[in-house]
Each structure stands twice: as C-alpha cells, then as structure tokens.
C-alpha cells in the first residue's frame, strides 16, 4: 500500500479488551485485531462467515447496549469496546441416530432444557445469521422437525444464542439434532441411490469402467471430446 493511499484511509479507535488501538476503518474486527498486533489462535477459522469461530461481543463508547457479531464479517467502528468469545462450554447430547426417532419423547431425553424456553427472544436478537432461533426452538417443542430443520439451516454454530439464554438451551446443538432427525427419518431416502449403491457393491459397474481404464489415452481423449452432454 503506498503512503499516499494510506493517508486517505480514515483511522478509528478500537478498544480490544479495554486497550485502545488505532486501526484503519476499512478493516473487519478480525483484521483490526491483527493490525493491532495480535497473532490469532482462537477466534479465527474460515475468515469468511461459515465456521462460527469468531463470535464477538462489543459495545460502543458511551452506550449501554451489548452487541454481537462475527469478527470476520463485521467492520470496525470508532469507539468499539470488544472481546472475542474463545470457547463456549455448550453441552452436546450424544445419541445413536439409529436408535432414536423424530419424536418429542426422544428429543426431551436428549435436550430437556428446550422445553423450558421462556420466550424472551434473546437468542433471535443476537443471531448474526438472522435466524429466528426462538421460532425453531418452538417448532422443536411441537415436534415439527421439518420446519425446525428448514429455518435453522444457515446456522454457523457460533454459540452467541447460547451465551444469552436464561434457561441454558444449547440451540445450535438442538437444531443440528433436529436436522439430522429430519434428514434421516422424515425426508424420504433416494430410491435410485440405494439401487445404484447396491449395484456397485455387487460389481455390476466394474466392466464398463475397467474398459475405460484399459484403453489408451488417444481413445479416452476421443471419447471425452465426443461425449454427450446432458
């Protein structure tokens, strides 16, 4: 970056765990921390909004409201007081998918706290993916795993919902279980997929592919160039 360009970029004050650092306003919180001199270990994974490693809580100078965001997906702002959540000790219930069913009775054994939801909506308010978290918890309570699976799908499991829940629900794990139950038991299996898998296991596809492997490159190249495109 040339100095001339650097000069044009506005700088802002960032308070990382209370200490002030002055960083370019074009950075994300994650980049801002690195600019300030941090070598990140925790709190950084995909750097693109998919993995949920970088949950961050912050507050603006002079304001009382606590805000949250993904550090890799949120721009720095002047006067941000922030800390990353390095780890959240959320509970995961273990289960044998083949031994359970998509019913409230089974679900209540895995995650009984789900049925204690107070309806405060704190989870929905903090979700950086804009998921209606409380609504999917309600669907789970009703045993509507299809709807819960559908609306919870974009969850990156950052854990911010859990950090705010007054009754200790681990929303993201409950949602994942709901999606697995839905996909295993409610969505229909692909019939032809099962048939094709069986055929491969019986060796029914061997001769066709072995013929290809045994042909020389010129033949393969010719077949490739002439192959029919759906």
């Amino acid at each position: 970056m040339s100095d001339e360009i650097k000069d044009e970029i506005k700088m802002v004050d960032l308070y990382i765990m209370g200490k002030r650092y002055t960083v370019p306003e074009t950075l994300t919180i994650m980049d801002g921390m690195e600019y300030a001199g941090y070598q990140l270990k925790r709190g950084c994974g995909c750097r693109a909004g998919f993995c949920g490693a970088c949950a961050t809580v912050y507050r603006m100078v002079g304001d009382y409201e606590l805000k949250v965001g993904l550090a890799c997906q949120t721009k720095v702002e002047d006067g941000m007081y922030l800390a990353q959540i390095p780890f959240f000790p959320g509970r995961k219930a273990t289960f044998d998918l083949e031994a359970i069913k998509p019913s409230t009775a089974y679900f209540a054994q895995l995650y009984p706290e789900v049925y204690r939801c107070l309806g405060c909506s704190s989870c929905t308010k903090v979700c950086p993916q804009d998921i209606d978290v409380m609504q999917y918890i309600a669907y789970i309570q009703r045993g509507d795993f299809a709807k819960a699976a559908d609306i919870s799908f974009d969850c990156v499991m950052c854990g911010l919902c859990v950090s705010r829940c007054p009754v200790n629900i681990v929303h993201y794990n409950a949602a994942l279980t709901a999606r697995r139950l839905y996909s295993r038991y409610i969505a229909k299996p692909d019939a032809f997929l099962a048939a094709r898998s069986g055929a491969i296991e019986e060796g029914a596809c061997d001769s066709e592919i072995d013929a290809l492997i045994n042909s020389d490159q010129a033949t393969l190249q010719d077949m490739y160039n002439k192959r029919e495109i759906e």
Partner: protein
Amino acid sequence: MAYTGNIGELVKKVEESRTSRVGVHYPRMTQEERRDVLEKFHPDYNTDGFRNLKVGVNKGARLPVEMADVFETWSRLRDRKPDLQADPVYDVDVLIIGGGGAGAAAALEAKAAGASVLIATKLRFGDANTMMAQGGIQAADKENDTPAIHYLDVVGGGRFENIPELARALVMDAPLVIKWLEDMGTMFDKKEDGTMITIHGGGTSRKRMHAARDYTGAEIMRTLRDEVLNKGITVVEFCAAVDLILDQNGRAAGAVLFNLETEQYLSARAKTVIMATGGSGRLHYRGFPTSNHYGATADGLVIGYRAGAKIIYADSIQYHPTGGAYPPQLLGLLVTEKTRGLGATPLNIKGEQFVYHLETRDVASSAILKECHERKLGVPLPTGISSVWLDSPIIELTHGEGTIERQLPAMMRQFQRFGVDIRTEPMLIYPTLHYQNGGLLIDENGLSTVENLYVAGEAAGGIHGTNRLMGNSLLDIIVFGRRAGRHAAFVSKEMSVPAGLNLDHLDAFHRELEATGAADGRVGPMLLPHYTHR
C-alpha cells in the same frame, strides 16, 4: 453504498452499458486463444513463480517458490528433541492429523472397524476448508449416468494426468458416499419423493452435483463432526502436528504435537497415521489472496515430505476467477461459480465485457489477469490493487427480479454485510488462490510412499491430475478419508505396539539442508500465517 469517490463514478459506466449487454452472446475463445492466454497469464505457467527443490525424495521437483520455502525449513524439534522413550501422552491405533472432512470421515471408519482413534487438529474441529464449500458434491447416482461417465469427466478435466486407480476409486465410491451421508442424516436438497436434486458443474457431462443449499460443505462437516462426537472419538483441538515419529523400521508411528495454547510439545504414539491437513492457500503464492481457511498452510505436505513421502503435481494450483476484491473486507473470499452460471459477466473499467462469462476457471482467471496487468483496463482500488467488475444486477434483468435473493442468498448476505447490494450494484473481483490440485502421492487405500502413513483429502495428490473439477473435492475427501480409515484400522489390528520410536529422519533432512544451505533461517511447518494488514 460502498462505492464512493472514483469507484462510484466508474459504476456508472457499468450501468450505462448494461441494457445493451442483455441477451448478447460474447464469443468463447478458440483453442489457440485459450492456450495463449493460459501460457501468458496463468500463474502455473509463470516460471518466475517456481523453483526446484534442493532436498528430499523429490529433489529437483518444481514447486511454487512459497511452497518450496516451507518445504525447505528446519524442524521445530531441531534443538528440542522430545523424549520418545518416555510414556507418550497419547497412545492409539490410528492417529488422525487434521479435523476437516477427510479427517472426520477417516475417524468414523477407523472407529467402526474397531480401532482406537485420536484426532489432533490445529484449530477447532471443523475449522477447515470443508466448512467453506458452497457449491456441491458429485456422484453418478442418476439413471442416465454411470461411474464410467463420471470417470471420463474426471480424467478429461484432469488433462488425462490422473492416476487411473485413484480416479476409479473416486467415481466408484461416489454413490456409496452420498448414501453414507444420507443415512447419517445429511440434509441434501431433495424432491418430495426423496430424489436428490442435482445440477451441472463446470466440466460435467451429466447433472450430478448434489448440494445442501449453498452451505454444502458446512452441512457435511457439521454432520460428520456430530457423529464423531456421538461415537466418543477423542478430539484434541489447537494441537498441531509438527513432525512425524517413525519406528525402528522407518514406518510412521505417531507424531509430535504442539499445543498452541500452552506451547508444549507432546508425543502421540500410533500404529498408523492418517494425514488429513488439507490445502495451502494461506501460503499466498505470488501474493494472491485466498479463499482458504486460516489453517491452510501445507503443514501435512511439509511434515510428510521430511519423513520421505513423495509428492505429485504439487506445482499445480487452482485459481478461482471470482474472488472478492472490494470492499477490502471481502478480499479473497469466494464468489460462488453459480453467480457466473446465472449470467453475471466480467467487465473492465469501461464497462465492456472482455471474456465469455463461462470459460473454465483457469482461462477466466488468466483473462482477468490479462485485463488488469497487460491491457491495464482493470478497476483501480483504493487498496492499491486492480480488479474487474462482475455485473450481478444483469442476472435480475435476464432472469427476473428476485432471482438473486432466491438463488444466491449466502452471497447476497455476505456482500450486504459490507454495504454492497449485489441485486443493484456490481461486484468487484480478482482471481483468488483456491485449491491445491496435487499433494502427497497415495494409492487406492490412501497409503503414501511411507509405510503406515496414509494421506486423505486436499493434502493428497494424483486423484485429479492437474485440474480438479468442482464437486470432486468434497467427494474425494470422504472417499479417501473412509478408505484410509478402514485400511489403517485393518493394518493396526495386525500390528504390535511400535518400537524404537525415533526422529532420525529429521537429522537426515537437516544434513541435506546444511549441505545445500536451502533453509536459511526458516522453521516449519508454518502452522499459522501472520497478518499485519500494513
């Protein structure tokens, strides 16, 4: 509105030309034009970017300079050899290094085969390239498709340089992999009757791309991770492998792990080791931005190579033409191929198209580099780099309003976070370093050229030749992860506890480094990149 100042002015050129571009077909390149632009502009053809290895089993092999630099490094254990005769901290049948898709698949199969398993991973379990894949996963599971047809696409795409047995394993296992994931409760896109919804991808002759909305990799990763935890498999996070341990017969017998938090070195003894450390985008070859996760630093290649594992096609790197360029927060981030698939077109500073929008990844990337650096018709950015437009609003003109919101929700969300509404404003893009086509050489069981050392996933090479097609990587990590897991468990059962554990291979490697002066002061593997944004 993120486009202000000079860029704000330049957007107008794109807007002005937009209606005149709707429905106009820009010509594809001829074979000669393609070859020409590749040779002149594709980073793989730029000899300055490469050098030959001075040490190791593939001495003389051509590698990107930045990769050669991490291959030729001193071990972190050079001056602090851990006591390998003491009781190891971990002692298992199968040690899996890397908690991405390949590692998780290997763990499940090894465990199912009765082995004791440990996953050691550098970041959190699932902080991996697997989590980031949006597009899809291929498998021939339709009536008009067969593994043989899939095979032809794989080897044609791979420039006929694939190892046939590996490509065969890839396509033959593919339907079994989809079935395995379906049974595990992975939420694939399906029709009412259960039929998988499949579409085309670059280079496919049948519609065999399966997806889970535009979070395909994330859905596969979180399902596998959940199942690994259900099965009670031990996972240690923030614990990176820094070197392999060998036994008295030179077979892989564990690894030295580095606890990133306490900065202690620990030894893990194992009868077999599976390397599943993924790619290397964070080495930023030629200064390119990357779409890869934070931990993609080629560690497994470096560690394996030191222990004598051979590499193949490690000089073949995939650049994705559409990486984010601006606003700066989006640098390197992948703009899914579907955006071009829906008709978004690359444009230069004048608002003119300069390449057919559906050219293959390598050709499209090269054409963009040409536009920026030879024709100097890129859009200059305040960050000091050049870029081109990707006109997304034309999608709405062609396919109707609402198409972007329906078809590209993750993309729309990502740009919106930084002030760009891709429904009405074009994107600014530049090629991004995306995928490592080659890696450590394996056989159909995932076995490397070092006994008892398996490799699976992006760290492995040979499956895709020198060019991987979209959707075949998510596939390969599960296919070879499972194969390696099964085979390693099987081999472990027949073995007694490894004896004579040593790090002698490091001494030998160091002697070569000393003799050639190749390492300077560099220490490896890199483990984590260091950014300052200055």
